């Protein structure tokens, strides 16, 4: 949704604090989060720089386009006609009354961030299930960190509808097998599906990454089974540094071209896919160890199993 959300959503509320300090710690974390957001809003240049980054603002998340849609709507022009505004009608309705006052908009963003943080906290406490999905097919060729835009600029027009369907199927086709296979781990399914969506949707942004990275710590028990965490961290770092650089070379300097930027989109995609594979592996491995503990007589071979899990 917002660039602001992307930066800091996954920082605070996910820490597992001991029961005694929990409430005071929570207050501290939430007030720090609030203060941080208020402080960040004091740098208007930061907001405009981040709002202009293609990794953050896509056609379906851009605040600029939202403002334009509201403006059109307010002036009696149908906002969806011009091919500029592609966002959900509900967002239009939500921002219609508040967009004229910058303070109310900031407050809305801050409150929604805090609400998300609070909900994540509640989830960690009760570890209950909750997942929601809502996607729509769009048709706009603005480049982004996704995997598909490049195909569409290379493709003949008559094939577009077919390939839009083929690519968009990826977003939800994994829902059924994942939900069946991992039915005992609803939280992990929520994480995995939002990663799948963040990877394969037409217009991904770092906002999607912040969603699944925010959900990932809910399953923190699988971290020690992950094999490629270093690789994944590196891939994410490389793509987040190189994406703006190649965008700069392509759009501003003119010495690069679209292939440069798309290549980084691919690296980012590989990072996300390895993250999915590795976390799924880690979860299954943990399950396996819990279900088939080593023979008690064979001391040597039990050395490798995680004691805590085996004892359960």
């Amino acid at each position, binding site marked *: 949704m917002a660039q602001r959300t992307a930066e800091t959503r996954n920082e605070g509320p996910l820490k597992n604090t001991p029961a005694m300090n929990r409430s005071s710690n929570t207050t501290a974390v939430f007030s720090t989060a609030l203060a941080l957001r208020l402080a960040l809003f004091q740098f208007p240049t930061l907001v405009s720089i981040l709002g202009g980054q293609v990794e953050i603002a896509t056609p379906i998340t851009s605040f600029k386009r939202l403002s334009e849609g509201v403006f059109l709507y307010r002036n009696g022009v149908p906002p969806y006609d011009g091919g500029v505004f592609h966002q959900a009608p509900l967002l239009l309705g939500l921002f219609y009354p508040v967009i004229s006052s910058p303070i109310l908009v900031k407050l809305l963003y801050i409150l929604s961030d805090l609400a998300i943080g609070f909900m994540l906290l509640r989830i960690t406490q009760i570890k209950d299930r909750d997942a929601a999905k809502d996607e729509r097919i769009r048709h706009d060729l603005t480049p982004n960190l996704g995997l598909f835009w490049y195909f569409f600029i290379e493709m003949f027009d008559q094939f577009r509808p077919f390939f839009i369907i083929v690519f968009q199927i990826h977003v939800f086709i994994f829902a059924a097998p994942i939900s069946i296979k991992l039915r005992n781990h609803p939280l992990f399914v929520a994480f995995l599906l939002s990663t799948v969506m963040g990877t394969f949707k037409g217009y991904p942004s770092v906002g999607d990454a912040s969603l699944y990275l925010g959900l990932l710590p809910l399953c923190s028990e699988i971290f020690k089974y992950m*094999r490629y965490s*270093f690789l994944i961290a590196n891939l994410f770092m490389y793509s987040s540094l190189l994406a703006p650089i190649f965008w700069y070379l392509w759009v501003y300097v003119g010495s690069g071209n679209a292939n440069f930027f798309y290549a980084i989109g691919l690296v980012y995609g590989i990072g996300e896919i390895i993250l999915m594979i590795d976390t799924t592996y880690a979860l299954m491995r943990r399950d396996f160890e819990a279900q088939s503990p080593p023979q008690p007589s064979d001391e*040597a071979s039990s050395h*490798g199993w995680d004691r805590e899990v085996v004892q359960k």
Partner: protein
Amino acid sequence: MGILNRLSKAQKRKLFSRFVLNWMPILSRAQALEHEFSQIGLKSATQNYTLNTSTDSKHGVNTYAVFYAPRSDANTNAIAMLLSLGKLFKRCSHFSKDIIFVVSDGQAEGLQAWLKAYHGNEESTYDRTEETLRVRSGAIQAALNLDFAGTGDYNALGIFFEGVNGQLPNLDLINTVADIAKDVAPVELTLHDELVPYTDNMTKNYINSLKKMLYMMKYQAVGSPSGNHGLYLKYKIDAITLYGFDKPGWPSQRYGFQRLGSLIESTVRSLNNLLEHLHQSFFFYLLSGVRRYTSIGLYMPPVIILGVSFIFQALSLWGVSSDLPLEVEAISKGEKTAVGLPYSRRDRNLKVPATIIGMSFVAGLASFQLLTTEFGFPGETPMLKLVASVGVCSMLVISAVSSARVRNHVLKSADKKDNSASSGELTPAVDWIILKTFILALSALFVTTLSALNFSLAVSIGVIIVFPYMVFRPSRFIGLSIVQAIILLVISPPGLLLMASSFYSMDVSMVLGWALQEYEVLGTWLLPAVCGIYWPLNLAAIVMVLMPVS
């Protein structure tokens, strides 16, 4: 100017340009030029600008004239040439593009003010004032910057092409000039201002080419343009400087006004024939001669290998910090456990190294802020600010090292106490291993990503840090650790600054002032890159070698 009437036209222009350049005050100089341009029949105008940096204040007036199409751009200091060309072009009907003549004031800042205003980015703050341009034309396709000192003849023509932050013009622009200088208007063409004779000795030829290439890489690495053409590149305009010079004793044919004019006219006509920007050629190259280039496919692999060497060691250290050593030990003892052992059972303690890395970056950015902010207290010099930032950084190193050592001490004594109780718990890997992993991973990240932007800077940083960062580690002998720390200090930014100033036998404050000036006037990345990337990693490395071994 009555006396001038008796002289020939060419002589008159030469005299005029000398007069204008040397003796007239800035404003009347600009007005005189504007007058001359309008005499020829070109639409001309002037532009005032002011630029206040933390050390200096600059003011000047640019003059420019637009030759409207029957449509290109040329910027020049060789005013006589410019006026003659203006007159010539006025008579030509085959131009399909506008030609702009710019006579910029001062050094790079004058042209920068003009370019900003031309692209509608003029500012009017206390620090920068750029007047809005009254006369304009379309998007500029290419630019030629003429640098011809004096009024005599020359026997060589040098091409300067390195732009701000190591940006380069399309290679075809250089090729065009090289072709024209071969056939249409034969002149001796070379890169920069040095002529090296071709010898029979192949080794010597290779070394001469290498010297040329290193000369180019030096300009690229520091990111300052080798001429005024460098500023155009920021605006997606291919540009080079043509520099006329006289090398005594060089056997080439001398050339004067006439041939130079036909060279420039041919170049402008070649550009005029283009339908769009030059783009189907090279933007990434290293030149070791006018007709000899190294493409990105050849020069990129070394820097990738540099990056990969960092990544490989980082990976191996990451492995060491996990269960890998235990696994190897188990195998050597003949136990069967190695097969079933999942990864990463041993906790990695990331808090300490992450804090150190984070603090180093804060210290680096703080130094950058210190250096670039004007506080306004008396006796404030860049040197004093540098000393203050060195103070900030050394404070970080001292506090990080001492707290790491104290922590180690506390942990050890706690360990001794419950030595009997702890049987199954695995001790996590030592902090320095993880810290070194971080340093190496970040070095790889920065060297490789920077190489996409400025290859020469990336490769020079890579070459400096590759050996120390790979080999150095804390030692049991405190003396060895200190020797390593001293070597790291030598390659730290202040150390490099001292070395550079003694190498060029310049004052340290002058070198520092120059770097600041380049950042403030032209927006080069050398200072931000050094303070924001290079220095933090260097600080973290110093902390790393001084950390406790176990």
